[in-house]
């Protein structure tokens, strides 16, 4: 009676609620999810026209019915975690809620269907959106000129440093190196290297800020710029930023600001006023356009007058009759950095966000983001180590020092947070904090939601003390348990190998509609 039916275990593990094959693996020959309409032009003989090049099969294509395709993708979509399901306290990423009004405006027919080949006379509305957005961003940053072209933050950095290089070249010497603090985003040194500069590391002081004495020692006639994130990646405002700018400017070097954390400054203080020469903005972070797989991103670059001649082409301009135009006649420009004019759909959403909030709304957004981070800090600093006591801005960085004594690391606690229904915070970044736990609640979360997160994290701290194994083996209630990240990185499986069979090129003969 060894094969007596006893039912499935409590948690079905091999059925579709837990597993989903690749769409290719679900395929079986002859299934279709489409039917072409009757041919209403004379048929041609493909073989006669194409000779040897004619296909006899379709290669390997998935063959499924319509409902199978619908279910496949719908099931996959339910396995995502999303801001519409819960909080993303992912430090450095600014996973704020993106208001539905943005989407409503972006879907207006005249905007959604606008084509880049439309004549300028029919594109005035589109150009005006770009103009009003540019003016708003310049107002917010205190800078003089802007390009909306870059398609992401790192692309913005690249564009900004190209401007720096073009500026120094116009003075006869591109210079050799770019200074980058050890707390920087990894994209900063990558940008500097791609633009042809040597990277020089700048150590942070005990408060996590730029060490002015060290900076003074390192800046010389070979320094092209300092790339600085403000507030820094530990969520601290560089209070001596104007002195940093003065030290650089005294040697002819420029100050680049990575604007990734601009959501802590909007409406309160302007980079243009504290000495920044060039910076990028992340519309997909600060200005509530989608990101994290939803994108695309958008990384406008704003600069001071001295860099304006080098901006990518085309730039927006106003003609004598008051209409807007795109100016390509820019002899000193670094050239185009992207096809067309940038990710225009994001410009609409960012502008919708700016106009819906207005100046006071944007200011309150900043204040709420900072208040939320400090609330978390105050409610958690007795259970987690706080490596930098300097006042926090929009995010707070703890470390796993207290829990690591029991073998519980930041990554373990991040995974345990999934069991409580939250996305993990950012682990192991910034690199200057060993075992970093970087938490950014954004302004979107209510007091009630923050209290839930606080409760979860305090529980986890207690578990780490009393039952460390529970945390070290988390997550326990997710669809998949802990994955083997090391093997995945050392022996990645990057390609699905098709079976030998290929899809025949058969005519559609089924009578049934789907």
């Amino acid at each position, binding site marked *: 009676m060894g094969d007596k039916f006893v039912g499935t275990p409590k948690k079905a593990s091999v059925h579709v609620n837990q597993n989903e094959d690749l769409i290719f693996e679900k395929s079986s020959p002859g299934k279709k999810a489409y039917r072409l309409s009757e041919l209403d032009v004379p048929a041609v003989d493909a073989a006669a026209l194409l000779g040897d090049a004619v296909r006899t099969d379709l290669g390997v294509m998935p063959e499924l019915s319509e409902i199978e395709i619908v279910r496949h993708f719908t099931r996959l979509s339910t396995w995502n975690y999303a801001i519409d399901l819960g909080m993303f306290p992912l430090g450095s990423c600014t996973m704020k809620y993106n208001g539905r009004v943005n989407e409503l405006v972006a879907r207006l027919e005249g905007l959604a269907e606008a084509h880049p080949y439309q004549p300028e006379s029919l594109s005035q509305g589109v150009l005006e959106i770009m103009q009003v957005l540019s003016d708003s961003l310049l107002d917010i940053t205190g800078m003089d000129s802007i390009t909306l072209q870059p398609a992401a933050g790192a692309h913005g950095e690249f564009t900004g440093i190209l401007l720096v290089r073009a500026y120094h070249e116009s003075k006869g010497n591109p210079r050799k190196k770019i200074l980058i603090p050890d707390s920087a985003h*990894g994209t900063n040194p990558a940008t500097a290297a791609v633009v042809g500069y040597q990277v020089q590391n700048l150590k942070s002081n005990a408060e996590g800020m730029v060490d002015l004495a060290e900076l003074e020692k390192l800046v010389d006639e070979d320094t092209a710029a300092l790339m600085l994130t403000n507030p820094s990646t530990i969520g601290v405002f560089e209070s001596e930023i104007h002195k940093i700018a003065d030290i650089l400017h005294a040697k002819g070097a420029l100050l680049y600001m990575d604007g990734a954390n601009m959501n802590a400054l909007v409406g309160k203080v302007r980079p243009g006023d504290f000495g920044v020469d060039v910076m990028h903005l992340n519309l997909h972070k600060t200005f509530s356009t989608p990101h994290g797989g939803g994108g695309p991103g958008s990384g406008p670059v704003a600069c001071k007058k001295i860099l304006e001649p080098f901006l990518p082409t085309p730039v927006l301009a106003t003609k004598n009759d008051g209409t807007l135009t795109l100016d390509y006649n820019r002899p000193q420009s670094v050239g185009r950095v992207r096809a067309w004019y940038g990710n225009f759909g994001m410009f609409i959403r960012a502008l919708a966000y700016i106009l819906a909030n207005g100046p006071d709304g944007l200011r309150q957004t900043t204040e709420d983001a900072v208040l939320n981070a400090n609330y978390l800090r105050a409610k958690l600093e007795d259970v987690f180590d706080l490596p930098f006591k300097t006042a926090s801005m929009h995010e707070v960085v703890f470390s796993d020092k207290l829990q690591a004594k029991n073998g519980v690391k930041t*990554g373990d606690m991040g995974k345990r947070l999934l069991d409580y229904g939250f996305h993990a915070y950012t*682990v192991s*970044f910034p*690199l200057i904090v*060993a075992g970093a736990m970087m938490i950014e609640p954004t302004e979107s979360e209510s007091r009630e939601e923050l209290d839930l997160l606080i409760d979860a994290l305090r529980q986890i701290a207690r578990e780490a003390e009393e039952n460390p194994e529970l945390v070290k083996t988390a997550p326990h209630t997710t669809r998949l348990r802990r994955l083997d*990240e*090391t093997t995945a*990185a*050392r022996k990645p499986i990057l390609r699905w190998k098709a079976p030998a069979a290929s899809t025949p090129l058969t005519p559609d003969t089924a009578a049934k509609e789907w």
Partner: protein
Amino acid sequence: MAYPTEYRYTKEHEWIAADGRIGITDYAQSTLGDIVFVELPAVGAELNAGQSFGTVESVKAVSDLYSPVNGKVLEVNEALNSAPESVNADANGTWMIKAEFDASQLENLLTAEAYEKFVSEETGH
């Protein structure tokens, strides 16, 4: 923790042996976590003290490898391409490159004792 006394060390957590072998310390490998990739220079490449000669990638982060000395790359440990985990298993015994260099430079580097003191100051325990 074991730091062989016949090696010299840097504050960037590399060790160098008198025969020119260069690797990373046991403290470095344990801080980095599981190492998944090591990128090394070509044989013959120039080494500058304090400058990056390659990178090491773990599940957590990508970090630069800094040369302890001025010199030239004599040999590269190709075995690390397929077995980067040997750095985790035996950091002291797993060299990354062999350098040709002027041995007088060793005097400027940390002894095992001084390095151990530096690490304990840096980590606070």
